[in-house]
């Protein structure tokens, strides 16, 4: 891996992953163009020793479906901070779960999911019901969400290897 911080915007095809490492597809929702969250999460996951296919911002539903088929990731990570995550993230997971071959693919979502910060109602149970395997909302600080995500990866994905 090169010394410089996150450059791959395109799926890195044919790259051999190291033993024990998992593949993550990192994306957002169609309406959200924020990128720093994606840049940071790519580093976070890579520093956990895994491979990341970072699709960038404003990812359409068909692009996520297509990439999930092509890359056969161990997990899809949806990151969104523009406040429409509850609506747009719901659309994405409903579409993914409607594809029979993707029905059991682990998919998690996190970020600033609503518009009212700490006074937002927690969207976790609603989004889980729609099919997300993990929901990591950020209200005050990102730390709790990131710790939750790390624990999910350790308990659910790395354990399953």
């Amino acid at each position, binding site marked *: 891996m090169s010394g410089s911080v996150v450059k791959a*915007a395109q799926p890195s095809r044919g790259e051999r992953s190291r033993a024990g490492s998992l593949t993550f597809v990192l994306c957002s929702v169609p309406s959200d163009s924020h990128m720093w969250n994606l840049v940071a999460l790519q580093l976070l996951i890579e520093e956990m020793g895994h491979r990341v296919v970072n699709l960038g*911002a404003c990812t359409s539903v068909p692009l996520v479906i297509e990439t999930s088929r092509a890359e056969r990731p161990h997990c899809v990570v949806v990151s969104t901070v523009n406040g429409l995550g509850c609506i747009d993230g719901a659309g994405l997971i409903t579409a993914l779960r409607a594809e029979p071959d993707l029905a059991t693919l682990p998919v998690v979502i996190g970020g600033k999911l609503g518009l009212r910060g700490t006074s937002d109602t927690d969207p976790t149970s609603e989004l889980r019901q729609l099919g997300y395997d993990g929901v990591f909302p950020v209200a005050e600080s990102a730390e709790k969400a990131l710790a939750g995500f790390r624990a999910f990866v350790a308990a659910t994905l790395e354990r399953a290897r």
Partner: protein
Amino acid sequence: MTVEHAPFSAFVAARQHTNTLIVQPRMGFSDPAVMRRGLLAVRAAGVPAVGTVTLDSFTRQGEHDRAAMAREADVELNGYALVAMGEERTSRMLAGIGGPDFPVQVRHGSPRPEQIFRTMLAAGVEATEGGPVSYCLPYSRVPLRESIRAWSQATRLLARQADQGVRCHLETFGGCMLGQLCPPSLLIAISVLECLFFAEHGITSMSASYAQQYCPEQDAEALGALRLLCAEYLPGVNWHVVLYTFMGLYPQSPGGARELLRQSARLAVRTGTERLIVKTVAEAHRIPTIEENVEALLLAHRTAEAEQLTPEPADGRGTEVYQQSRTLIDAVLALAPSVAKALPIAFERGVLDVPYCLHPDNRNEARCALGPDGRLEWCETGRMPLQAAARHRGPTSLEALLADLEFHRRRLDPLPR
């Protein structure tokens, strides 16, 4: 033939004579009644201000059906759904609000803005902003060539309004790009190039933008360079400069948030900048309320009034940022006979390259370093015709990247106990 000023420019020019900083919020609400109340509150704040209608993310992406569906279900969005609301409801929302002493501007973030412009014009608003690069790369994954084509058409539509006596104002968003960790020279180059693009399509009233970064001295040099370059490259055009209060990861504490806003207001006054778009205490957390927006406007205004200095624009020409910006602008202009043709080639070849930008048409080979004094310097210039002269290395880990992103938080938020 005397060219009549666009009302927006006339408003700015009148305040310029008295050295009064114009302040403006980034305000947008999906409920038209709240949007109207917000505009009225800004007008009633009693300070020289421009009203803002900021649009929601669905509208920015052209998903007007989804915006309409959400509104019908009374779901709140992150801005005003202009096209879904349509011209009639928007005219009613705006009735009696805008005028020569209170211009209203639509702020959107769309790589394909024509429909937004049509609705806005029909509702009587003639000032807006964006640009073919600045509203494509950070705001979408629409191919850059497509955005440039769409912006060419939409910009001509604005220019053509002059036939009916309506003079539109257009502000470039080129001075922001990803909001943070982009060296000033690239921001200024894109800002000037987008102004040239607007001029090429017949716009005669425009503003060039720059977003506050991390170092007041470097920012002052940058604003000085921007003014000089506008004077050199935009003859015959009516232009002014607009500064954005810091657009990146914002301090979380109310005290830190206010201090960063105050610093931007002082920077604006010191550099003779005409207009300032503010940030609120809610920035790090959620969409700000009307009251938080008005509070920010008042604070910026008062700070500017207290900064009694006569502006002393930094002597631009000698600075590195002037030289670098000029090199970038000239390198792009040399690529093709028009700016519209040159811009996509510039990004294909990496003559322009925005650090960290994940858009498929950006090479993403350039990187910068943030010095302890807050100066941004190039440490990897990719294929841009610039020298990388950083004294410091760019971040190579998540921890280091977050440390750069959190520069203002570290400086201005109280230490966690």
